[in-house]
Each structure stands twice: as structure tokens, then as C-alpha cells.
């Protein structure tokens, strides 16, 4: 069905040492990345981290200043966008306002010289469950419907890679959840590589097989949602994905598969496998839901004070101040072991060694915190 002018490569998408400069500003900094064929891949980061620039370079709408981009064995770095077997779902959908929905979806097929587009367009419309809207114009559709049409318009071409640029950003929360599931279903059905750019960590974690967390033009860490959440390698990743408690500490010894660290006179243990630095100055990390309001564990801090509590349905969130005035966040599940503490109550904290991780202490302890809602 394809026009011979459009490349028909299959295989992994490989970015090799790609950089992009705008004048002196470095938007993407020496980025290397392999996206396996058929995977759902997310580029996650705050606005201005270079994720959209990366996407546009893959689409061919920007040319890298350095480095190469390949699909399989074919170098597409300087190939025109219309020669690449890559399609994009744009942030504001960019549907052609003067064409009907049918013609919008048929656009790519027609440009490649395919005569009989009817069946293909209908199949694509059915895939997004909007077959009845074929004769409408984009202006007559709701945001959610336009979003699905944008997906259909891209997918009907069976691209090797489908790029999604914040595709759910303009939708309200409920519709966004629904579309997340929908997109995941479509990806499974068509088996195309999806690269999803988003600043919403929850969206990335829900949908993607692999997430690359980007910050300042570089990839901070890449892995599954669980890996990134449970074992972050940088303070930025720890803070950007969910909430995290970080404590400045010093490594005293590394032996027997564990490291012993101290902070303000308290001693904590961390499995060596979860220490991602050789430095002795570390940031000790533990997620709020891993903290317990008890004092029996290996890692514990006594003589803390509750400074804030808020009930959020499934859990109660406490802010607890340590004796050295550091505030830690604690989530307690609302089940039988509930403590029901109030502001001013004395409390102890404890957590398991295997839930602790240690990061390089030279980083900014607040990197990536409070960034996700910026846009």
C-alpha cells in the first residue's frame, strides 16, 4: 500500500549522541536512546527539558545539530518529514479545519497515492469508535473527539513509529484517564512503536512500558515505572516521580551487602544494591508510604512531632518534623492499624532497609520537586 518514496524500515528507533542547539541554548544535550520496536515509550520531564525537541527531531520537523537518528539500519537524520515512516499526534491535534474528518484521516493515504482509501479510513474511524462523525468538520467536534481523530489520522498510515506530543494535555481529568486506557488499547492492537511525550508522571507511569525521565536536555534515568519509582538513581527522578523524602547523610561502612550511614546522630542501613554512588556523602531516600509511625525498625527516628495532617480518602498524609527540623512526608493507609495522630503529637518513624535508597549527595536535594504541574 505504500509509496516507494516513503522509507519502509522496521526495527528499533535509535538516537545516537543527538544534540540540538538554538544559538547558545542547548535544548537536547548529547542524547542517546534506543526505543525497542513495538514498545510504548514515554519521554517524561518538566516543560523545557527538551522532550518535545527530541520528538520533533524524530518527526523530521527539526534537524539535529549533532548526532544521528536511525530506524533499524536506515539513517533518517536528515530525511524530510514526508519521507519518514513516522507520524505525529500534535499537541493541539492540528486537524485541517477546511477538510472533513474523513478527508483529514485520508490525507496521508492520498498523499502516498493510495486510490481506495474508504476501507482504511473507516477502519481507523472504527478503531477510535467515531465512525458516525466522518462527514463533520473538526470545528464541530469536542476536544476528546478531536484527539481521537488525530490519533486515527496518524495510525491509518501504519507508521513504524507514532509520536504523541502531550496528546492529552488539553483534556479534562476524567477524559484523560479514559484516553490513557484507550491509547494503551490501540497500541496493543496495532503493535506500532509509540513514543509519548508528557510532563504528567502519572500518565507516563500508567501507559508506558519504558519511561525516560528527561531534565535539561539529558536523560536522567530510564526504566519501567516500578524501577524509576522504587529505585531512582537521581534526586530529580526521586522528586519528580511521586513524592520522596531525602535526608542528607554520610556513609560509615560498606560491608556484607549493606551500607551503614549516619545523619544527625542516627544510624540507618541501606542494601548496597540500592546505593547508586561511590561517594560517602549521600542523600538517603525513602517514599512516604514506606514510612511507618513506629520505632521498632532498623531505620528509625525517634522524638519527631506531627506538624500537619490531611485526610485524603485512601490514606492520611502527615508532615512530621524530625529533631533536626527536617520535614518528612508520611502516608498511612486508612485500614485497621490507623494511628489517628494530631498536630503536635510526639511520634517515631521507622522503615525497612530494603525500602531505602542512597543517591549521590552532591545533588540539589530539591531537584525536580514541584515541577510536574508547571504547564
Amino acid at each position, binding site marked *: 500500500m505504500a*509509496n516507494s518514496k*516513503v522509507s519502509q524500515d522496521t526495527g528499533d528507533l535509535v538516537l545516537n549522541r543527538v544534540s540540538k542547539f538554538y544559538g547558545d541554548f542547548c535544548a537536547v544535550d548529547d542524547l542517546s536512546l534506543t526505543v525497542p520496536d513495538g514498545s510504548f515509550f514515554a519521554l517524561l520531564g518538566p516543560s523545557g527539558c527538551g522532550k518535545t525537541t527530541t520528538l520533533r527531531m524524530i*518527526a*523530521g*520537523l527539526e534537524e539535529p545539530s549533532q548526532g544521528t537518528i536511525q530506524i533499524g539500519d536506515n539513517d533518517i537524520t536528515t530525511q*524530510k*518529514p*514526508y519521507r519518514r515512516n*513516522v*507520524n*505525529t499526534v*500534535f499537541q*493541539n491535534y*492540528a*486537524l*485541517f*479545519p*477546511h477538510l472533513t474528518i474523513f478527508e483529514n484521516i485520508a*490525507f*496521508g493515504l492520498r*498523499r*502516498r497515492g493510495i486510490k481506495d482509501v474508504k476501507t482504511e479510513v473507516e477502519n481507523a474511524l472504527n478503531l477510535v469508535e467515531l465512525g458516525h462523525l466522518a462527514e463533520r468538520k473538526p470545528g464541530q467536534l469536542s476536544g476528546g473527539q478531536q484527539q481521537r481523530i488525530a490519533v486515527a*489520522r*496518524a495510525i491509518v*498510515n501504519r507508521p513504524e513509529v507514532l509520536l504523541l506530543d502531550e496528546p492529552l494535555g488539553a483534556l479534562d481529568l476524567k477524559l484523560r484517564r479514559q484516553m490513557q486506557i484507550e491509547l494503551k488499547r490501540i497500541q496493543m492492537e496495532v503493535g506500532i512503536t509509540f513514543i509519548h511525550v508528557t510532563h504528567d508522571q502519572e500518565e507516563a507511569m500508567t501507559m508506558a512500558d519504558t519511561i525516560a525521565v528527561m531534565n535539561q536536555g539529558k536523560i536522567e534515568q530510564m526504566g519501567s515505572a516500578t524501577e524509576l519509582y522504587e529505585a531512582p538513581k537521581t534526586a530529580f527522578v526521586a522528586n519528580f516521580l511521586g513524592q520522596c523524602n531525602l535526608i542528607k547523610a554520610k556513609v560509615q561502612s560498606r560491608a556484607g551487602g549493606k551500607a551503614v550511614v549516619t545523619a544527625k546522630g542516627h544510624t540507618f542501613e541501606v542494601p548496597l544494591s540500592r546505593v547508586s554512588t561511590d561517594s560517602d556523602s549521600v542523600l538517603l531516600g525513602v517514599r512516604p508510604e514506606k514510612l511507618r509511625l513506629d520505632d521498632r525498625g532498623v531505620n528509625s527516628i525517634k522524638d519527631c512531632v506531627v506538624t500537619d495532617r490531611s485526610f485524603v480518602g485512601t490514606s492520611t498524609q502527615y508532615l512530621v518534623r524530625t529533631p533536626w527540623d527536617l520535614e518528612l512526608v508520611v502516608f498511612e493507609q486508612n485500614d485497621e492499624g490507623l494511628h489517628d495522630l494530631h498536630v503536635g503529637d510526639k511520634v517515631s518513624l521507622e522503615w525497612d532497609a530494603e525500602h531505602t535508597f542512597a543517591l549521590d549527595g552532591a545533588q540539589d536535594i530539591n531537584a525536580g520537586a514541584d515541577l510536574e504541574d508547571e504547564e
Partner: protein
Amino acid sequence: MTTLSAPPMPTLGHRASRWVSRNLIRIYAGLAFIYLFIPVAYTFAFSFNDAGKSNLVWQGFTLDNWKNPCGAPQVCHAVSNSIQIGVLSTLIATVLGTMIAFALGRHKFRGRTTTNLLIFLPMATPEVVLGASLLAMFLNLRVNPGFWTIVISHVMFCISFVVVTVKARIASLDPRLEQAAMDLYANERDTFRYVTLPLVMPGIAGAALLAFSLSFDDFIITNFNSGIESTFPKFVYVSAARGIPAQANVIGSAMFFIALFIVIIGQVVSRQRKKS
């Protein structure tokens, strides 16, 4: 002196001034429209005047002028000239102006700012000056003024208006639509043909209508560069010395109604498009 406890009964004067202040905008709009349309109404009314030689005084009602709009000597020749010149200069100015607008709106090149400025100049220059210079130029080039010198002059001053109108439309065009087209396998030519051009078309059409009305209407520049050739405005001007025939009013009114008709059709079509 008024008391604070009971509001005073509104007097007639109060009520009148309140009515005026409430309807001030409507009164103002009504006056403005009357001011704008009195000349048109006058022209229209006098197209029915049984005028004879001079159409200055009301002599009685007749439909003869409308039945025979070419009745006055040379009037239809002048109108036909005006239409031909209008169509030709609109076509040329729209094509050239649209190309300039795309160059200015879409590409960065050396001298773009200067070009932008130069495009404005003909609009800012007094028409008498333009007309006189054009005539001097034609005479120096030993070209006899006539039909084609009028066309050339009209194209020249229409281009600026076309550029400005089309450029505004291009500026409001979302560049992502063209990127989306490129992303969907449309090369540069197809992107222009299937996305850019259809989206800029309303601007181009508007520019063409503007160019035609400017050309059809022009007297000053035409008068300098027409030689013995006549156009409708020139005909009216020349005959003003002896008395304008009522046929001029007929043609003027007809032009007005045709324009009105086109505008209404345009509105209806765009409203229906929005509805469906």
C-alpha cells in the same frame, strides 16, 4: 432641596433624559448610518429622475433610465473599460501580491524589513503624485497612455493592498497545520496546494475584491494615465461639466446593489457552513 427618605417623582424632563441616556448608542448609530447612506440614497433616487439634460433637479419619476442604462452616449463603453481594467489589474495584482505576501510572511531574507516598508509606500503617497510620476515615466519611455497604461498603474497601487491583506491571513495561520501535512507525507508542493492555499484563500479572495473595487473606483491616477481612453469615474467627471446623465446614477446604484448582494451571499454561506 430633596429629602433622603422619599425619592422625588420623575419629571418629564427626567424621563426624557433617562430615555436618551439608555438609547444613546442606538441614536448615535442611527445618525451615523443616515450620514453614511444619504449620498447613496440620493444617487439611487435620482436614478429614477426624468432628467433630460441635467440631473440636478427632480423632474418626475421614470423607469426609462433603468430600462436603458446605455442610453447616454459613451457611458457603457466607459463601464466596460472599467470592468476590463478592474478584472485584469485584480488578477495580476492578486497573483503578484499573494506571492510577495508569502515571501514576506514565511521567509527570512536580507532586506525583508525594507521590503515591508517599501510595500507600504504606495499607500502613503498622495495619488496625484503617483499619477503624475507614472505619466512622466510613460512619456519618457515613449509609451502612449491608454488602456494598458491604466492597467499597469492600477496593478501598481493594488499590489500593496493585496500584500497587506494576504499577509494578515498568513500570519494568523497555525504553522502546525503545515507541519502536520508534511508529517502526513505531503511534500512542499502538496502541503501548499492542499493545506496552505485553501486556508489562505479567504484572505486572497478578500484582497481580490478590495483590489477590484479600488481599481474600478480610481479616478486620479487613471485620469493622468488614460490618454483618450475612458473609464466610468472619468466619464462621470467629464460629464459633470455638462450635467451628469441619470444613467450614471443607474450604474452607480447597480454597482452598490451588486456589492451588497455579494456581501449578503457571503454572510449567508459562512453562517450556513458554521451551522451544518
